[in-house]
């Protein structure tokens, strides 16, 4: 268990988030009982106040004394039948546990040791104390609207934005060209293209394969003197025809290197068998 677990809801019972009443840290006779629990924002706050009343540096406080003071405080509040918020009682129980472990012989110590718990409690109180002082110093600064004032009736600065539009001559006529081009009636023409169909390529390649037993490159199967566009079509069709003939077992295909010439020859009956 660490003090970090001791977290209490604010604004409930003794812990309150309303405007500070100011009774909490008042310098009452040391152990005099506060009736205004409202002054504390929780058990840690009360502990800090008690620690401060040891009138020593927070680094030098006696945790045992502090525990006693706190427990004493709680006892007296109970004796007076004051309704104490649960968080104060939880802290009291934890501190009673801490005290008893601190008084126990060393060897029976559990982990974390009571020294560690005590030291961490002390560190927490130091940190809370530091922030409380920082808050006080912050609030004491020259604050706008309280200590210093800004101009009551500034004229204000106004900036009017004006747009300077830009467009050049070329963009203008290009724009007109685009409108005209976009809205001009479009005429689509489909042009006849010389092609070699797959069927005619199949006929052509198998006929030519019947003539010779030698390897021939694919290009040799293309019609000579074909114009470029027909030639490209013929190349594609002849290639597919060659694959088809190879699939049917009527031809074999060889290529020695990647992207090397593709060679083709008739598959003889003997080779098939």
């Amino acid at each position, binding site marked *: 268990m660490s003090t970090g677990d001791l977290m209490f809801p604010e604004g409930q019972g003794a812990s309150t988030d309303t405007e500070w009443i100011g009774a909490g840290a008042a310098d009452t006779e040391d152990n005099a009982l506060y009736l205004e629990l409202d002054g504390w924002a929780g058990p840690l706050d009360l502990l800090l106040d008690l620690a401060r009343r040891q009138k020593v540096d927070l680094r030098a406080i006696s945790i045992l004394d502090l525990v006693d003071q706190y427990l004493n405080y709680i006892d007296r509040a109970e004796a007076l039948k004051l309704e104490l918020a649960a968080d104060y009682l939880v802290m009291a129980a934890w501190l009673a546990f801490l005290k008893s472990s601190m008084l126990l012989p060393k060897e029976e110590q559990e982990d974390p040791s009571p020294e560690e718990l005590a030291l961490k409690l002390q560190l927490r109180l130091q940190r809370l104390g530091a922030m409380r002082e920082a808050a006080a110093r912050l609030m004491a600064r020259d604050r706008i609207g309280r200590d210093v004032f800004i101009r*009551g*009736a500034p004229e*204000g600065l106004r900036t009017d934005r*004006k*747009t*300077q539009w830009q467009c050049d001559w070329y963009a203008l*006529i290009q724009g007109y060209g685009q409108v005209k081009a976009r*809205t001009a009636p479009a005429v689509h023409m489909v042009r006849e293209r010389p092609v070699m169909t797959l069927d005619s390529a199949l006929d052509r390649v198998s006929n030519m394969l019947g003539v010779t037993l030698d390897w021939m490159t694919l290009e040799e199967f293309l019609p000579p003197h074909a114009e470029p566009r027909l030639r490209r079509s013929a190349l594609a069709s002849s290639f597919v025809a060659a694959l088809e003939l190879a699939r049917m077992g009527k031809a074999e295909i060889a290529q020695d290197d990647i992207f090397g010439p593709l060679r083709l020859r008739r598959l003889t009956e003997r080779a098939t068998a």
Partner: protein
Amino acid sequence: MNDDKPEPLVRAVEATLFAAEEPMSVDALASHLGDEEKATIRAALRQLAAHYQDRGIHLVERSKRWHFQTAADLAHLLRTEREQVRRLSRAATEVLAIIAYHEPVSRAEIESIRGVQTAKGTLDVLMEAGWVRAAGRREVPGRPVIYATTPEFLEHFGLQTRRDLPGLDELRAAGLLDPVDDAYNLLTGLDDTDAPAADDTPIEQAD
């Protein structure tokens, strides 16, 4: 006066007038500052006014009440104009071009030439730029507003008259009338057909 640390009352009057939400009279100042002598307040005001007379702010009296205000010669600082340069959008450029070639032209006509609807703001932008003006109404049903270009338009685009705008033949020669597909084919060398001739001509407009 020597401008070393001013007297306490002068500082007090200075701060009070600075923080005040309204101009203050000598009476108001005197009572605010713990019933000072009015004569002392007046002296302080005179000192302050003298101190500030060459500065960026002045202490001035208006109908017996005092306040700080910006020096008159710096009043322009309170309102500044920022010029922002922006390119005309493509839609606005097209509309401007249509108006230039076909003016005067109604919005409906612009839309039918562009083939798309024209956002309300587009014409506003062109008018804000000072290049287009409303030029009356067309005497047809509905009496639509017609638009025309302005002298600033000619000036901005370096034109003497609207007739300096290139004609369709010139646009075509410059490739500006080529539909996108043909232009693409031309680039890739796969096509040699001419773009179909668009045979509408700009409306000839007498100036």
